[in-house]
C-alpha cells in the first residue's frame, strides 16, 4: 500500500483504516441481524396468513364432509328406503299364506336316517 508520510505515517494511516473497516463491519453485522430479525418476523406473518387460509380450507372441507354425511344418513333412513321399495320399485310385503317356515331337522333324527 502506498503512503504519503513514510513508515511512521503509513503505520498511523493503516491503523485508521482498520478502525473504519471494523466500524463498517459492525454496521453490516447490525444491519444483517436486523434484516434477519425483520425477515423472520415477515416470514412468521406470512406463515400466519397461510395457516389461517389453510385452517379455513380445512374447516370448509370438514363442514362439507359433515354435510354430506348428514345427507347420506338422511337418504338411508328406513322410512325413505321403504317408500322407494314399495312405491317406486313395486315391492310388496310377503303374504302370510306365502310364508313357509323351514325348521332344521335335529341332528339326532338326521343320524337315525
Amino acid at each position, binding site marked *: 500500500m502506498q503512503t504519503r508520510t513514510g513508515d511512521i505515517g503509513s503505520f498511523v494511516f493503516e491503523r485508521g483504516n482498520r478502525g473504519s473497516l471494523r466500524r463498517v463491519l459492525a454496521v453490516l453485522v447490525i444491519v444483517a441481524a436486523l434484516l434477519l430479525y425483520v425477515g423472520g418476523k415477515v416470514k412468521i406473518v406470512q406463515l400466519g396468513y397461510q395457516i389461517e387460509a389453510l385452517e379455513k380450507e380445512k*374447516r370448509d372441507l370438514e363442514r362439507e364432509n359433515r354435510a354430506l354425511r*348428514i345427507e347420506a344418513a338422511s337418504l338411508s333412513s328406513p*322410512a325413505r328406503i321403504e317408500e322407494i321399495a314399495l312405491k317406486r320399485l313395486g315391492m310388496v310385503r310377503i303374504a302370510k299364506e306365502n310364508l313357509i*317356515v323351514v325348521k332344521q*331337522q335335529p341332528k339326532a333324527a338326521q343320524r337315525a336316517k
Partner: protein
Amino acid sequence: MDRRGRILLIVALIALGFALVAGRLVYLQVIDRADLAARAERQQQRVVKLESKRGTIFDRQERELAVSLEVESVYGVPSDMENPRQMAQQLSRILREDPKTLERRLRSDKHFVWISRKVEPGRAAKVKDLGSKDVGFRFESRRFYPKKALAGPVLGFTGMDNEGLEGLERTYDKELRGVNGWVLAEKDAVGRTVFPGGPGFQYRLPKSGNDIILTIDEVIQHIADRELERAVTTARAKGGVCIVMDPGTGELLALAVAAAHGRPAFNPNEPQQYRSGEWRNRGVTDVFEPGSIFKVVLAAAALEEKVVHPLEKIDCSAGSIKVADRVISDAHRSGVLTFTDVIADSSNVGTIKVALRLGKERFARYITAFGFGQKTGVDIPGEIPGLLKDRRLWSGVSIGSIAIGQEIGVTPIQMAAAYGVLANGGMLMKPYLVSRIVEQDGGLGKKFAPQPVGRAISKETCAKVSKMLQRVVATGTGKQAKPAGYSAAGKTGTAQKIDTLTGSYSKKEYVSSFVGFVPALSPKLVILVMVDTPEGDIYGGTVAAPVFRAVAEQSLAYLQVAPDDAGGGMLLVNR
C-alpha cells in the same frame, strides 16, 4: 451575537428539541405505558372463540341419529345502514322473516343485530348475492336429525345455543356439549386475523363433546313407529306408545310415541312447529290405568305365594262380585274356569277372588317388587313414578280394583319392565337407552351394563305365568297378537279412562293395550302397545294386539331369530 454564540443557540435549540422528544418518549413509554399497551392490545388482538363440536348420537349399529353441522347466521350493522326499509324487505323475502320485525331491528342504533340465525345454506347464498356491506355472516353450529321424526321424543332437541332442552339431548347435555376453546390472535391493518405462533402464543383447544351410542335400533324403531301410527290413525285415537325391550338386559330397542290422530309425528328438526305437549315422551311421563294387563302381577304373586294353582277351578258363574261397597262385573259372563282360563279370558271375578285370598299385604309387596310406584330410572327426563296408594291408605275395595288394574296409575315403561320380569325368569331390570359414551380425545368413555333392580319372583313362577300368557294368545283374548312362526305370550287390556267431568269411569273413553313377549319359549323381546282413546273398536285384543303381532314378526325376522312355532306350515329339512 457572534458566530460562536449563534452556533451555541442552534445547538441549544436542537438539544431542547431532542429533550422534548425524549421527554415525550419517557411519558409514552414509562408513565402512560400501561394504558397505551392495553389500547394497542385491544386494537391488535382478538380472542377467537373455538366452538366445541357437540357429540353425535348413534343408534346401536352406529347409524347417525343426531349430528351437528356449522351453518351461517346472518347479522346486520344498523348503525351503518342507509336504507333499513329496503334492506328489510329484501332480506325478508329470502329469509322468510317478518319484514316489519326486521325493519325495527335494522333501525336500532346498535352496531350488531341478528337478522336470522342458523339459516339454510341456499338462503345464506342468496343473502350474499345482495352484496351488502352492512350484512355479515357468522358460522354457528346447528343440530340436525337426519332420520327426521324417527325416535324424535327419545332424542329430544337442542336450543339456539346448542343446549339440550328435551329428551336424551337434555339428559346427556353435559357429555354431548364439550368445552369451547379460544385463541388469542392478532389483527392486521385491514382486520385480517393472523395467528402469531411461537413462544407466548396463547390458546386453549376446544374439547369436543362425547358421542353417545344408544340401545335403540333404528330399524326396529321405524317398525314400531310405523305400526303404531297406523293403529292410531285407523282408530282415530288420541295417541299411543309402543316399547320394544330386551328382557334379559333392559335395553330399549324402540320407544315409539304416536301423536294424536291427524297430527304429524314429532320431528326434532323443527320443534317450534309442535305444541309443547307433543315434545314429551309419553312412554315415561304419562300414567294410565292399566286394566287387565295388570292382572299378571296378581297372578304372579298368587302363584309365588301358592294361594292358587294354574289348573285350580274358580267359580266365575255369578258374573259379578261385591268387594266392600262396589260390585265389579265381568265383560262377558263365564262359568267355572281354571285360573289359567281366568287370565286367558280376563275374568275380573276370578282375578278378584284370588286377590282376596292373597291379601293386601302380600299383594302390595309384589306390586312394589315389580317396580310400580317408583321411577324405573330410564334416561329420559320427566319420568314419573306413577300413582300407587300406600297400602295403609287402601280402602276396602282397593284390593279388588288394583287386582284388575284400576285405582293404580302406571307408565308404559314400568309396564314393559314388569313384563320383562316374567320373560327373563323373575329379575326386574332397569330399562336404559344409552349403551356407551365414546370420548373424542381417545379417553376411555363409559359403558353401561345391564342393571338388575332385584328379584321379583322365582323362575318357576315365571314359567307358570308364561304358560298362562301363551294361552291368552292361543285361545284367549289376544289371538290377534300371534306372530306367524313364533310362539308368543301376553295379555290384553281394555281400561276405562276417568271422565274428568264426572270423576267416574267413562263409558266412551278407553285405553287399549297389549303387552307380551316373543318367542314365548325363549324370550328375546318384550313388546308393549298402548293406544289412547280409540274410536269405534276399543278392545286391546283388536286394537293393540295386531300392532304387537306386526312389530314382533318384523323385528324377530330383522334380528334373525329362528321361528319356533309354525304350526301346520312347518317344513322339516336336512342341512
